[in-house]
């Protein structure tokens, strides 16, 4: 019987993908910080995760097409942010400080997910080799 990586890694690979997507959305916000009329976006983590997990059962037998599909469904979870100020003069709702903090937070959360994944991998290795190396 093959080892099920899906079960071994749990939600962490999905979480990583969503963090990755979020880093992209935040980068977009920062790049467009001076674009008139641009509205800041962010990823709804909970919704994106539940969407990604509900596809977990199907994703086992799919190949490249499925990856693309997950990415496109996650993109729809990016929602517009509630602006802090009603009007900034040019219709732009990006708060650069908020975005920078979000990037930092996202980076840390990505690291946390990676750490969890790493510990799962080292657990698997330990089980396979019996030495933990």
């Amino acid at each position, binding site marked *: 019987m093959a080892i099920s990586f899906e079960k071994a890694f749990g939600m962490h690979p999905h979480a*990583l*993908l969503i*963090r*990755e*997507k979020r*880093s*992209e*959305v*935040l*980068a*977009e916000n*920062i*790049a*467009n*910080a*001076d*674009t*008139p009329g*641009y509205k800041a976006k962010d990823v709804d983590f909970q919704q994106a995760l539940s969407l990604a997990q509900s596809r977990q059962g199907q994703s086992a037998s799919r190949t490249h097409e499925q990856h693309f599909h997950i*990415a*496109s469904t996650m*993109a*729809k979870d*990016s929602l517009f942010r509630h602006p802090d100020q009603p009007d900034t003069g040019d219709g732009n709702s990006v708060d*650069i400080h908020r*975005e*920078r903090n979000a*990037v*930092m937070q*996202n*980076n840390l959360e*990505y*690291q946390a997910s*990676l750490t969890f*994944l*790493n510990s799962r*991998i*080292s657990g698997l290795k330990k089980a396979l080799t019996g030495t933990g190396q």
Partner: protein
Amino acid sequence: MSISKVFDIAGSGMTAQSVRMNTTASNIANANSVSSSIDETYRGRHPVFATELSEARRQQGDSAGVKVLGIVESDAPLNVEYAPNHPLADDNGFIYKPNVNIMEEMANMISASRSYETNVQTADAAKQMIMRTLRMGQG
């Protein structure tokens, strides 16, 4: 790989901000360029930013960078000065100075350099994420 798009997006932001820095430098350098006619006078130049969203990307709900739509010249009135002794004065004794506000340009420059910096930091954060992912399972 979605995270490598961060480099494209941050790169587009850096390009746009450097265009802004360029126009600011041009405006400040020419702030005192005097001329003897309205048509020949230098006018303040400012880039117009827009979200870089192609049709295909919009349908996928994909993220997008920023692009410079174009550079427009300021419509503000020129500074006209009466200086009959100036070598470039016209027949009526007027010289024309650009409609560049140095204070505005300085603020613009600081804003552009800060935005550039933030884009660099975003790319840096993405690089860290990728490096850590590449080392996954090794430590």
